[in-house]
Structures are given as C-alpha cells and as structure tokens.
C-alpha cells in the first residue's frame, strides 16, 4: 500500500516530478502530432488517390491511346458481372489553358471524360464547386453563360434551371450552418459583359439588368482544376475572379496512333467554364481541365478517321476506368480483369495495323494502388522515418527520466532508509520508484495526448493564425505538400501505442535509479546527509 500512497503524494508535491511529467508530455505530444499528421497525410493520399481515377485502370502510358475500348467494356461487364460495377473511357493529353479575359495562360493536362460515367467510378463529382449548390447543372455539353437578372423586388435572380437546382439543394441540405452561409451570400456577381468579378466570392455569376438569361454563344463546357484557375488567399479561400460560364480556351496538339504529330496545326478550343474541381491533390488540381470525351476524342483525331485508302481508323482512348463492386478485393479483381483483357484480345478477329498491335500489347491493367504506389510508398517511408526520428528524440525523455530519478533517489535516500527501517523490502522500494515513473509516464501520456490532440485538431487554425502574423510562417504550403489543409485526425491506435511507449519508456528510464534505491542499506541511508 505504501508504494501507491507515497507515489500519489510524491507526484503532486515534488516539483521534480512535474518536470518529468512535462518531459513525457512534450515527447508524447510531439510524437503524436508527427504520427497523426504523417498518418493523416498518408491516409489522405490513399483516399484521394483511390478517388482520383477508379479502382482499376487500363492504360498504355502514352497519349496516342488504344482501340477496342468499347468492345472490352462490354466484354468485361458481361464476363465479370460480380466484379465490374461500371466502366468509362477517359482521354488525357497535354494542352495550353487560357483565360482570354485576363490572359491567364498555363500548361494543362486535358482530360476527356463522360461526366456521368466518370462520376460513377470515382469521387470526381464530390469535388465540384457549383454542382454542390446547384446539383445537376454541371455538364460538359454545349452551354451558354448563365447571367443573373434582377426581379421586381430588386433581387438578383439566376436562370430558372439554376434557381430550381439550388432550391433542391436547400431542401436536402441538413447542415443549417451551410444553409445560413448560402443565404447570407447566395452568390457574388460580376457585371456583364465584364468577365472578372468586382466582388470575388464563393459563387460568382455575371449579372445584367432585366430577366436572367444564358449568354451566347453556346460552347462546350469545361471543368477546371481549382488551383489552375484561382489563387488561394491567406484565409484558405480562393480568389474567384471568374464568373461561371465565362469563356476559356484550351489549345491541343493532335497525335497519330503511332504517337507522331498529326501534321494538323494546334487546335484552340473555346470552352465555357462550367465548374471547377478539387481532388485535393495539388498536382492534379493545378493542371487539370476536364472536357467532354467525345469532343476531345474528335479534336485529337482519336475518333474513327478515314484513311487514304478509304478504310476507317478505330476509335481510341488513353484509359479505360473500371469501378468495382464493393465486396470484391482489389488485387484479386485486377488479376481477373487482366486475365479478361488477355482473353478479350484473343477474340479480336479483325486485322490490326502494326500500330494497333503495338498499342494493344502495351495496355496494362493497374489497380489504383499500382498507379500511386511510388507516391504512396514514398510517403509511407517518410512517415516511418519521421516517426523513428522523433522516437529517437524521445529517447532523450528516457535519459531525462533517468536523471530525474537519480536525483530523486539521492534526495530521498533518507526516506528510503526510513522505509527500510520500518520493514520495506529492497524490491518494494525499487517497485515504488518504478511505479512512480509509471505514474509520471501515465500523467505525461494523458496530458501529452490531450495537448497533442488539441494541437492536431486545431493545427490548420494555428497555421492560419500564424500566417496572419507573418505569411512566411505558413509552413504547410499546398504547392509543396499536395494538400491545401494539414491532416488533422488523431487515431485511437496511435494514441494507445504512443501512450504505452511513453509509460514503458518512463519505467525503463527509472530502472537504474530504482535499482540503486532498492540496494540502499538502511543504516547508510539513515546516516545520509
């Protein structure tokens, strides 16, 4: 009983114990912050990488693409109905993105997608800005520019389709704060025909006197990566200078099936800014322009083209994205689909050109993990390395606990003598100091977990606050770290192992001084001055 009693008493009466608690607390908080941020970083990367394309991707790795993708979609859907949920082709190529209104010009990676099909195989739709508040209104087909009018009460009003979509969203939104936010600022406006907005805000539309309308001409829609189009302000929001529906352009270069330049001049395609998309991965969001698959296929001459001899080339795509059913395993499905691709190629009886044979042979079946493996592995290694480094730094805490206990044993030598003169055993005295260290470890771990968790939960707010003091203090740059926000999730498993590590470390740190305390001879201890 004396061990527990004295440990409890020492813990809150000894300043030196508080120093030990502080050391453990700081180490626990430090390791927990590192593990949580790095773990969150890894988890976010995995989640976003998974939601970026689809679970399975067929790709040749080159922009000239491969044929027979429609046939294989049908084939694999029929052959593996329990595995394949949805398929959709996608084309990617490189281009030059431009906003004529302010001459913003940037290199871009242009994706040709079928909006509905693409949204079925990944999380693309979740990251759209306008689609969230005006569901069902984002599309990549021909469209005019929505211009807000003024009603009889002098209020701005969008075209009926957008008003109706917004009413649907308001009817379904369960978060009152989001509704209130929208009601307070339904949309910022920009005066027609100027394109740049006077009042940048979350939802920017052009406006004009009279009835709302759609401005001509009708152009193909484009969904643009948010970071490609807009700059982020210090408060974390985007400086939305461009009205929805504004004209942007993309300049494309066409390639032949063999990958040569087609000889056609580069094509500049005028597009309407239909929406902007954020996957959360900066490398994607700062480069991506999504346009309609069929339109891009046509512009890139990847649709069936007539050859000189009058025969037709086959339609090509650069990727075929396959979404899996929920219950199936990723690796197992990848193997099944790869096998299906091999068997499908055996069913192609039509004569193939050399280029087609080569591109078909180059098609590989990847899982999303394969595609992102190098990136994910790098982050995993980084996480292990950083955790190890901070773990090593935390060994300082063990040494510190050792020093504190050595001093404590020195200081408490007389007490040890008293206890032994009253019948305490060497093991009991040793156990008391180890228990004391465990108590310091537990207290430090609890406080460190609390402090570390608080820090992680508010890490973005802290960073934003620091950035308001001095922009140079914004340590987490979205351009460097892919994500705009620092991961802020603390996992219970991390808390447990960090806490246990801290407690065991404290006990290990106290072992030598505790052994010394146990060996103290009572007479020597009582005479100790």
């Amino acid at each position, binding site marked *: *009983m*004396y*061990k*527990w*009693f*004295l440990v409890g*008493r*020492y813990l809150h*009466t000894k300043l030196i114990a508080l120093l030990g608690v502080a050391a453990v607390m700081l180490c626990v908080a430090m390791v927990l912050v590192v593990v949580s941020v790095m773990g969150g970083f890894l988890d976010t990367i995995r989640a976003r990488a998974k939601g970026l394309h689809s679970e399975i991707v067929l790709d040749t790795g080159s922009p000239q693409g491969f044929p027979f993708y429609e046939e294989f979609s049908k084939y694999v859907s029929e052959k593996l109905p329990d595995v394949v949920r949805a398929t959709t082709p996608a084309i990617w190529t490189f281009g030059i993105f431009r906003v004529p209104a302010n001459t913003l010009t940037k290199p871009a990676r242009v994706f040709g997608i079928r909006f509905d099909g693409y949204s079925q195989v990944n999380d693309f739709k979740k990251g759209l800005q306008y689609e969230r508040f005006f569901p069902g209104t984002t599309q990549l087909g021909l469209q005019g520019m929505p211009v807000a009018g003024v009603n009889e009460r002098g209020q701005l009003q969008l075209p009926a389709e957008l008003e109706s979509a917004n009413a649907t969203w308001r009817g379904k939104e369960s978060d009152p704060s989001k509704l209130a936010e929208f009601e307070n600022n339904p949309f910022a406006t920009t005066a027609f025909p100027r394109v740049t907005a006077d009042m940048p805000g979350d939802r920017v539309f052009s406006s004009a006197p009279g009835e709302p309308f759609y401005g001509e001409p009708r152009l193909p829609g484009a969904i643009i990566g948010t970071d490609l189009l807009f700059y982020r302000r210090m408060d974390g929001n985007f400086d939305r200078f461009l009205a929805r529906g504004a004209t942007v352009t993309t300049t494309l270069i066409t390639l032949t099936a063999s990958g040569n330049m087609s000889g056609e001049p580069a094509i500049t395609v005028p597009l309407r800014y239909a929406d902007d998309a954020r996957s959360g991965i900066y490398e994607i969001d700062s480069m991506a322009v999504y346009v309609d698959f069929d339109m891009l296929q046509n512009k890139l001459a990847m649709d069936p083209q007539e050859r000189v001899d009058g025969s037709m080339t086959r339609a090509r795509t650069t990727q075929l994205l396959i979404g899996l059913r929920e219950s199936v395993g990723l690796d197992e499905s990848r193997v099944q689909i790869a096998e299906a691709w091999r068997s499908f190629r055996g069913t192609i009886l039509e004569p193939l050109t050399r280029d087609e044979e080569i591109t078909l042979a180059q098609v590989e079946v990847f899982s999303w993990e394969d595609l992102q493996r190098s990136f994910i592995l790098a982050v995993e290694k980084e996480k292990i390395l950083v955790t190890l480094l901070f773990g090593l730094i935390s060994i300082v805490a063990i040494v510190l606990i050792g020093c504190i206990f050595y001093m404590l044993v020195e200081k408490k030598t*007389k*007490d040890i*003598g*008293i*206890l*032994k*003169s*009253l*019948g*305490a*055993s060497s093991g*009991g005295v040793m156990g008391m100091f180890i228990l004391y260290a465990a108590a310091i470890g537990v207290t430090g771990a609890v406080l460190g977990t609390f402090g570390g968790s608080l820090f992680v939960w508010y890490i973005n707010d802290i960073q934003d606050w620091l950035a308001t003091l001095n922009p140079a203090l914004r340590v987490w740059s979205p351009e460097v770290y892919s994500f705009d926000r620092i991961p802020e999730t603390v996992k219970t498993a991390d808390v447990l192992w960090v806490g246990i590590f801290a407690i065991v470390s404290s006990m290990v740190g106290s072992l030598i001084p505790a052994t010394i305390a146990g060996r103290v*001879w*009572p*007479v020597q201890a*009582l005479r100790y001055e």
Partner: protein
Amino acid sequence: MSKKPILHAQNIQKSYIMGAEPVRVLRGTSLEVKEGEFLVITGSSGCGKSTLLHILGALDTPDRGSVEFKGRSLFDLRDSERRLYRNRDVGFVFQFYHLLPELNVLENVMLPHFLQHPWWRWRFHKRKSVKDAEKIVERVGLAHRTRHRPNQLSGGERQRAAIARALITQPSLLLADEPTGNLDESIGTDILGLLAELNSAGQTIVMVTHDTRVASYAHRRVHLGDGVIREATGALGVRSTTSHTSEKVAR
C-alpha cells in the same frame, strides 16, 4: 526483575573501513534485555552506541556475534523475516525523528501499517489502522496535530510523532537512538517522561544516549566504551546481564 529476557546479544563485533584503516567499533559486546525493562546504553560520541542499536534492530549486521530475539537468531532469519521483525517486533525512535516530510502526522504514524498490507487489502484494514493511529497519537499528546506535516511541528512534537509511529504496531521492543539529543532540556525531559510512562505501561525500551542524566529514567544503565560494555548498574537496583568481556563496575 524476574521477567524473562526478550533480546540477547552475544559477542557482537563490528568494524568500519575509514580511510585505509579498519576501525573496530564493537569488540565483542554482549547484552541482555528483559521484558518490560528500560535499559539505557551510555557512552561518548562515536563509541558505537548507535551501531549496537542498529544491530539490535536488524538494520545493520555484525561482523561476528549473534542477536537472539525471543529465542530466534536475527541473522539466521531470511530477509523477509527480518523485515517482519523490523516492522512488527521493534519500533525505532531516531535522534532526527526521520518522519517523511510529504506525510502528515497521522499518515507518518500509519506508515508501518501501510507497509504491512498490499493496496488491494488495505481497504479492509484502513479503518482499524486510522483508529489505532488516532489512539496512539492521542496517547503521545498530538491529537491536535494529526493533519500537520513535520515541518509544521516543533522538535518535541516531531519526536512524539516518531514515538507514536514506533508504537503503532505494538512492538515488543522500542529502540531509541538519542531521542532527546536534538531537543532542548525541557522538551527532552518531556520526551523522557513519555518514554518512562510507556515503560511503566509495560513497554520494553532500549535507549542509547551520551547524556548520563537520562539514565535516571531507566531501570538499568550500561556503558559502552572501547567497543565493549564496560560497566553496568541497575539504577533501580536491578543487576544487568553482561558479557564475559564486560566489566562489572559499581555505580
């Protein structure tokens, strides 16, 4: 006194290494303590009085010789049995009180009980322990100071608390090492009065002191000099038991 011996030390020898030379502190000291006796061991500073007391209390081991308590040889006992002896059979009172500064008077007094019981059984013993402690604290005149810490007490009060702690387990033998050595005369007299009172109630006491005046409170006084019990006298007319190396000297 016709009572039976409770403690018997035979030919105790003890040396310390001080610098290069071994210093023989005890050179064959023998001593017998009878039940209910108040024995005072006097001697000059550094003569080995405290060492002898520590050996009698199994806090230290002799180089040679034996100590028997109620017929059992202390240094043939296992460690655990010797701890039990220190915890239950003897009570120590030190010159510098040796109270734990983090505990209040009551907790200091209860300390031997804390040592007796593991935490999971403590709740069965706590009530009795508190009751015993309160009783003994009251007996030594500290009932009004139970919640005070040692640094809030006077020297005499600290010594009373130390005596209460030594008595909580109702030991057969109370060993007091210069209990008045750190107190002024009037408070020292109080403490000696308390010890005499305890002895009157049947408590066996062995006290070492260099102050010969203290001997008037005892049944018997022996003198330790040159490492042996050199003289012995019964202050109340009781003859002491001395070793073969001791020399009987009339007071």
